[in-house]
């Protein structure tokens, strides 16, 4: 098989599936960065949501209960981050890190103690999210491109578009960007910056939860220890590469998704060491960080990750 043959429809489908979790959490990071909040804790929010989703789905055997529990878990974690950083005056980075360590240990603890499972938890009682098939597309050339994905893959386009409109067409968007760019001036202009920061934090919790639920209930129907595997951080890098704009972040996430998808395909074609394949997203992230560095040296665009 020639290497060029891996570029086909199934690669594109795989690309969309790999992009979804990174893009959604990346946009959570972007909106936080835009408001001047360095949200390291996204990783923990994803994990908590992924676990809560699986646990609730297991106990109730209902997909909706799983999704609701996951979203509540993500938002509760976000509120915890907000309480620590904005109300109790903890350093944002420390609060985010503590939340990530707390979430990783907490979900592992609950999985081992409640279900007696180490490593991963999978059970037929866990109801996952089924892909959506559009019957009206059947037989058309669009079918392989558009049909048969789970909801997050469609949702990410709407989130990107919606955030773009929010950013540039609404007063709230202006207030968010003003808070990030110049908090003092924003305060003078009558914007309650603390309230804006709370708002984006809670919203980022919602997005991170959707991303986490994608991992545990859509892509797979199981929970594994630390299953977010750095996607929250990769999302932060994507938002930085995309200058904290929704569409830029989306594009950067697609780049990571492409790397992921090619890795998955290569694994099927060549007998590569699985560890090297698994390393692709992280190696790509390092490359992107270097690119961000070069761009900053050239001063093409301003620094995107806020310096807390």
């Amino acid at each position, binding site marked *: 098989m020639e290497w060029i043959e891996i570029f086909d429809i199934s690669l594109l489908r795989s690309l969309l599936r790999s992009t979804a979790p990174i893009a959604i959490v990346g946009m959570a990071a972007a909106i936080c960065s835009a408001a001047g909040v360095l949200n390291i804790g996204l990783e923990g929010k994803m994990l908590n949501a992924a676990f809560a989703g699986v646990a609730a789905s297991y106990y109730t055997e209902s997909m909706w209960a799983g999704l609701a529990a996951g979203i509540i878990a993500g938002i509760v974690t976000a509120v915890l981050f907000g309480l620590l950083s904005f109300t*109790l005056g903890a*350093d944002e980075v420390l609060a985010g890190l503590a939340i990530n360590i707390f979430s990783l240990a907490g979900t592992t603890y609950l999985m081992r103690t409640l279900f007696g499972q180490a490593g991963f938890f999978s059970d037929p009682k866990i109801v996952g999210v089924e892909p959506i098939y559009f019957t009206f597309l059947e037989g058309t050339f669009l079918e392989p491109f558009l049909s048969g994905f789970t909801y997050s893959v469609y949702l990410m386009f709407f989130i990107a578009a919606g955030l773009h409109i929010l950013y540039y067409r609404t007063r709230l968007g202006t207030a968010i960007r003003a808070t990030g760019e110049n908090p003092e001036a924003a305060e003078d202009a009558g914007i309650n910056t603390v309230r804006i920061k709370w708002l984006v934090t809670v919203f980022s919790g919602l997005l991170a939860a959707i991303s986490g639920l994608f991992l545990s209930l859509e892509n797979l129907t199981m929970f594994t220890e630390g299953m977010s595997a750095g996607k929250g951080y990769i999302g932060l890098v994507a938002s930085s590469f995309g200058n904290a704009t929704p569409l830029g972040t989306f594009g950067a996430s697609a780049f990571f998704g492409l790397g992921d998808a090619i890795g998955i395909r290569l694994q099927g074609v060549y007998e590569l060491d699985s*560890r090297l394949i698994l390393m692709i997203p992280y190696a790509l992230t390092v490359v992107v960080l*270097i690119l961000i560095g070069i761009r900053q040296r050239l001063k093409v665009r301003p*620094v995107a990750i806020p310096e807390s």
Partner: protein
Amino acid sequence: MDKFSFKDVLVTFAGLFITTLVAWVLITSTGNNPSEVAKYLYEGGFKGTRNIANSLYQATPLILTATATLISFRVGMFNIGINGSMYVGALYAGWAGYKFTNLGHLSHVTLCILIGMTVGALWMLLPALLRVYAGVSEIISTIILNFVAVLFVSYMANGPFRADPIAPATARILETAELKQIFPNSQFNTGFFIAVIVAILAHFVLNKTTFGYELRSGGDGLVGVYPSRFSSYLGIPSDRSAIIGMLISGALGGLAGAIEVLGAVRYFFQELEFNQGFDGILIGILGKLEPIGAIIASLFYGAIKNGGFFVDYKTDVAREIIIVLISILIFFVSAQKIVKGLEKYPIVKKLDSFFSRKKM
């Protein structure tokens, strides 16, 4: 950062009290008996020579990773990648342990440790340079490098360094490269003393020397703020101190990994799992970013960690509960406003000044 003060101690104890309450809820709600868990936690941590030795063994890498954390934080760099340094340091110290023959005991151990430290330091070079010369957040780059490190060492143990045809592991280190284990049935080894000496050395260098002052001037009192302009007004190159601080931090991470391999495991294998780099961040903060504080907090953490293993073994409660509880404690300690809020009370103020006077 401020020195230890009474109100910090007060917050820590209040945090401990609330953490204990949370622990009680967590344990009861998962159908276990809290007093039984407490008993095993105590026994596993402190009862008998073997458990005490094991607790000290658990504390060994933590002292180093906590010191590594605090050094990087105090030069104004958030190094979250100490775990990565630990992995690569452990891998290459183990490699040096079987590769170099015909060496004496002392020279072989020293060589292995130096190689581990060098590799650990080099692992931090890219994030440091990216941060200082291109303004790329070292927080993210070091976190991502942790993931790279895990996969890299696992690849090496499986591929180029693999010696065992059945298990993905390197060859055993030679006897000349071993750090001696002192107690029977315990992995406690002489590396503990290396760790303590390094931390004490760090205390003196950071607090008593000009070099330490230059290092700190970048970030001290400004945790969370990047190398300030302040130090460059004084003619101190804060860029240089940021890079040096990161490299020292990485070297100590590598040392922690080297001691694990040379003193306890004696070879590197694929499933070898480290998380002391992350624990070290929590401990460094608990110890108020002071090396002596790091030693004390590590001894405490090591004991409850070892107790946690015993709890895990004896009951249905998973050992991760320890990390959950410590991170809840960190929530309290890092909440500056709780600490500041205490200053309102005259009694706290009085005790505070009393204790700080005594320190002078």
